């Protein structure tokens, strides 16, 4: 089955990002395809590489980056949600005249059209977060 995953919450406060990650891993292990993971609303906070949890805690952001590298996943951060919350890649930094960028490896910033295009191609949209 072809899945698109939508993540609506940031890491740590809610289990949402963990559940989405675990579902994605299980789907891939089960031979399914994950066409795209779309980070929406506060979910865009899954994509900042400045995240620095304590040593004995999981690193939610690095975990996404590793999974993306391993399975060639398409991790898309919603641009409108990202701008409001200060998640920028280098080109957004330049365009918005900011002094830093923080997008984690394996993520890219794009528009809501990526979610719509994804669900048109997918068999199922699975949404994590309320």
């Amino acid at each position, binding site marked *: 089955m072809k899945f698109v995953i939508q993540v609506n919450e940031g890491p740590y406060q809610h289990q949402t990002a963990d559940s989405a990650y675990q579902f994605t891993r299980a789907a891939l292990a089960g031979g399914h395809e994950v066409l795209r993971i779309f980070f929406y609303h506060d979910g865009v906070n899954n994509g900042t590489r400045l995240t620095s949890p304590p040593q004995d805690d999981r690193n939610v952001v690095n975990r996404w980056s590793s999974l993306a590298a391993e399975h060639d996943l398409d991790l898309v951060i919603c641009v409108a949600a990202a701008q409001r919350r200060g998640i920028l890649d280098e080109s957004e930094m330049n365009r918005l005249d900011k002094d830093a960028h923080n997008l984690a490896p394996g993520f890219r910033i794009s528009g809501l059209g990526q979610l*719509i295009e994804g669900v*048109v191609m997918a068999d199922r949209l699975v949404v994590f977060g309320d």
Partner: protein
Amino acid sequence: MIKKCLYVNRRAPYGTSYALEAIDAVLIGSAFDQDISLLFIDDGLFQLKKDQDTADVEMKNFSPAYRAYDMYDVEKIYVSKEAMAARGLKKRDLIIDVEVLSDSKIKDLMDEHDVIFSF
């Protein structure tokens, strides 16, 4: 490929960002030529309330955007009969024309859609 997309609006307009975000998502869905329906349930009904005044909460009143939906061919707009009654709302209290469905009909509506976006 065209899919039947149902956008479910469940929350009051200004307490969270979801109602405003849903408007963008509906317009993008329309730009991708998808077959779009909107459903308002629970406190989502309040998004369609006439005479919203957001000055004191320092938020933008985005409710006029709902009137623009017909220009984007977004014409199938449903509301929950039970949610209307629970909030003392009548069709005349709403900013746009809607079709009122009982919750049992809403189950069928969800069944017949390919994709459900929940806000």
